[in-house]
């Protein structure tokens, strides 16, 4: 599904290296989690995978279903089926959620979307996510609470039906009940689309109790320093990153 090989990246117009010889392989239907301390490069990784304008790839490649997407435009990556649920979704004034979503579906499908089917599907998803029905007529993320913004990301995910999902700190800004709702919607989606792969980027293991990962990776200084299963996330919660001594490992390597 998705493979990152020997990827090194830096911030555009700066010397700072963000990822260094980074490798990761995610197969269809797998759920991976990337954890790590602040500044480890987790969110940057998600942006680089989506082709963010602020980063340069120095070396290495990103493959999606065996196609090299390292230099592909962001919109083309989205049309291939990659979806990034953002940590802090941006506000776009004057563009309503419904207009935006219907046009986005048309861009991704490459064909007109039937209005009746769109409204039916939209209403059902809004109800599943416990969102207010008037949000669809409001501008994208304008006046939304932190929780509503995150739910709106998941609403878009459910409507656009991606094959590979990146969840960048989905749990930040969500209360316990909202996190349960959002995760149960994602699990439902994964049940209906079992080939879909997920990369969860998170500080805390709480979200991983609701969407259980097959693999947990610890990222530090732009490299994966340890890989394990869900028990690794539990150990991190108990002992902290220092406690499991993975941060020390990278120092020794250096």
């Amino acid at each position, binding site marked *: 599904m998705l493979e990152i090989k020997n990827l090194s990246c830096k911030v555009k117009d700066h010397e700072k290296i963000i990822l260094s010889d980074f490798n990761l392989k995610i197969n269809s239907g797998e759920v991976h989690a990337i954890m790590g301390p602040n500044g480890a490069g987790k969110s940057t990784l998600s942006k680089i995978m989506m*082709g963010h304008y602020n980063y340069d790839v120095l070396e290495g490649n990103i493959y999606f279903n065996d196609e090299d997407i390292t230099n592909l435009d962001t*919109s083309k990556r989205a049309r291939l089926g990659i*979806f990034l649920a953002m940590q802090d979704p*941006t506000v776009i004034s004057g563009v309503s959620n419904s207009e935006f979503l219907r046009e986005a579906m048309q861009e991704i499908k490459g064909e007109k979307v039937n209005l009746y089917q769109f409204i039916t599907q939209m209403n059902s998803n809004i109800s599943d996510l416990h969102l207010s029905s008037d949000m669809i007529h409001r501008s994208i993320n304008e006046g939304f609470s932190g929780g509503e913004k995150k739910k709106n990301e998941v609403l878009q995910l459910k409507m656009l039906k991606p094959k590979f999902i990146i969840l960048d700190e989905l749990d930040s800004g969500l209360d316990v009940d909202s996190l349960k709702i959002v995760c149960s919607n994602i699990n439902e989606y994964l049940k209906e689309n079992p080939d879909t792969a997920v990369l969860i980027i998170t500080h805390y293991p709480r979200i991983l109790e609701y969407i259980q990962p097959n693999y947990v990776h610890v990222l530090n200084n732009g490299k994966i320093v340890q890989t394990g299963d869900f028990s690794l996330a539990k150990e991190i919660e108990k002992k902290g990153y220092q406690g499991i001594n993975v941060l020390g490992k990278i120092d020794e390597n250096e």
Partner: protein
Amino acid sequence: MKMNKIIENDTILYLNQDDFEVVLDINSNCKVEVYHFVINHSSSIMINLNSEGATVNYHYSTINYDDHEVKIEVNHKEKNTTSNLYNHGVNVKTGRLTFLVNGIVPKDMVRCICNQENQIINISDGKSAICPNLLIDCYDVISNHSAYIGKFSLEKVFYLESRGFSKKIAYQLLLKGFLIFEGVKQDILGDYLLEIENI
């Protein structure tokens, strides 16, 4: 075309670039919504709030190519009057677009609200200027202004691209959101909508 209009009831007005000189006298306790869409033209607009309780919400939207000046002046001539000005411009080429926006509240005109929000998006290397003036000679007044000149945020473009929109379509969506105010029916826009699509 010069337009002099006396308004005494709640009214919604749609104006275009042919209305380049506008004088509105609002003479009763009523609310006036104005949507003014201009393609490559200067404008001079004067609004007189002549009666207690009079309110104007003026939405001015312009697509600019050459050198043009937009002058908007609101005179709060009575107590307890309200003005909210929303001025949005897109400067497409290398011309100069200037907004001169004056809100005037003289002495003793208490409980007035006098707000203005001005934004110009430069698509290329055009020169733009905004002069927001609040000439308030009274203490008991609420007054705010904001001014922005620049490009569309790249983060907004990235967000739209990440949902499958090409760069061109992403900019089109941002332009429509910026230039067409909420609540305006697209069928009244005619040539203006086509002009946005051609930017």
